[in-house]
């Protein structure tokens, strides 16, 4: 349960050690880069670079494939559907009634899929190398309000709890003879109400106690709250930031100022 939601895996690599703020900036910059680049070979180069990072973060192929399996399916779907819905360009490779498959459309589909692959993998690296608490801490340090950070942290923290809760309620209802995987869609969704209602009631009760617990621990007592954990940029973090800036600035400059087609 926890493994599914929390992708973080403890290891001691330079990506794990990197300041989470730098990683967040890096992910944003690389995502932006994936949008700027429009040539397939450049996107594939970017993808290779991202996979190199993944390798350096010691992510195993099987875990990555598992975490990204929905993305992979989505990419295949893009490659298949894009040419069907985009009839522009020549030469035409095949046609069937109103549907025309053209060669540029096929490449555009592959390009888009590569872009999606870049985006997903780069975010996966962030989640894989950064613990949830560091992520939230970084967001707050970058100016996100503490209440929002806390809300995010609490949501992440309680996901597995509610997951376990749903499982146990399902078991309890099954033990009373509820069939959750039989019948048509309508019947099944009706049966799921018997799981949903107790879950919601229990979640609300938890939220009630939670709010009492927060207040009992002096939540909101002072505006100048301190933090046990500090984030400190080390020299290597600045280097990483500089490298990233260069990776983005060069292509951006080429594309928008020098009007080079990339």
């Amino acid at each position: 349960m926890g493994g599914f939601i929390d992708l973080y895996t403890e290891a001691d690599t330079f990506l794990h050690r990197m300041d989470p703020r730098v990683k967040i900036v890096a992910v944003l910059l690389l995502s932006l880069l994936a949008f700027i680049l429009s040539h397939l070979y450049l996107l594939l180069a970017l993808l290779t670079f991202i996979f190199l990072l993944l390798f350096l973060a010691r992510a195993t192929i099987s875990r990555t494939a598992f975490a990204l399996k929905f993305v992979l399916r989505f990419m295949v779907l893009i490659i298949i559907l894009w040419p069907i819905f985009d009839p522009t360009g020549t030469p035409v490779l095949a046609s069937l009634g109103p549907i025309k498959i053209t060669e540029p459309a096929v490449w555009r589909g592959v390009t888009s899929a590569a872009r999606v692959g870049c985006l997903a993998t780069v975010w996966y690296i962030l989640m894989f190398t950064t613990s949830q608490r560091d992520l939230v801490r970084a967001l707050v340090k970058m100016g996100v309000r503490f209440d929002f950070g806390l809300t995010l942290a609490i949501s992440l923290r309680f996901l597995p709890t509610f997951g376990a809760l749903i499982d146990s309620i399902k078991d309890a209802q099954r033990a009373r003879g509820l069939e959750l995987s039989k019948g048509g869609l309508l019947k099944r969704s009706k049966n799921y109400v018997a799981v949903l209602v107790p879950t919601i009631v229990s979640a609300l009760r938890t939220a009630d106690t939670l709010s009492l617990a927060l207040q009992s621990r002096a939540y909101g007592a002072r505006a100048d709250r301190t933090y046990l954990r500090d984030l400190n940029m080390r020299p290597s973090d600045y280097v990483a930031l500089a490298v990233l800036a260069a990776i983005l600035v060069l292509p951006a400059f080429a594309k928008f100022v020098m009007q080079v087609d990339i």
Partner: protein
Amino acid sequence: MKALELNNVRFKYRDFQNWALDSVSLEVEKGEFVTILGCNGSGKSTLCLLTNGLIPHAIQGNLQGSVSVFGNNVGEQPVSQSATKVGIVFQEPESQLFCMSVEEEVAFGPENLAVPREEIKTRVEWALELVGMKGYNNRSPFSLSGGQKQRVAIAAALSMRPEMLVLDEPAYALDPVGRLGLYSVLRDLKEKHGMTVILAERDAEEALAFSDRFVLMKDGKLLESGPPRQVLRDPAKLREIGVAPPQVTEVASLLNTRMGTSKFSFLTVEEAERAILEEVLKPKKEGRR
């Protein structure tokens, strides 16, 4: 100055008819360990929620009378301020821990109070050591056992350096081993740290050994208050409020009835053994009755 002073307190939850607490007056001295006994719905939790001002600040209803903690009226100051004097541990271990690591959990209170970072570190280590959870700093609270969760909740309250700790049926969801660990922490708090403790319980057995006072509650009313030995002299009182009397005191009361005396009163197995041996080995001067 009393640690806690309830003066003729009545409380009714919003939209409800019954008084959840009815004319309750109670004084708790500094350093006292008070166990509040009562069955379902007797008003224990309501009383606990009053001690740091969650009633009336977070929970609406009709409140009469006054509640003060170390001389301050909790109705007149925000909960976050009362929280620096009173730490609370709730019944449910699951929903009072909300951080992603044990360390953050324990640091949360002092962080809110803007305690300097170095001091927080010291307090976290101190509190975790006290509850026997040293070294669990980076574990997720979700991954702990119920007993460990409750001990972390205690540490999270202690790190604010409160003068009083209020625990609402902390052992409710725990297995026997978890209970044992929890009560040994409570005993330490009293014996080594002189903490003022208010413990709500449905069961008299475990708190017996280290409570200075038992308070019996029923239907929102405070029926009796006194040292355990005095309150337990008549086990019927406990049964009347729906609490099972500890087995040793049952033995004492049975012996008293059988032998027509009232001299037996023991709270521990050791005391019982000594008293019974004495009785058995005593040379019989008078004839059998």
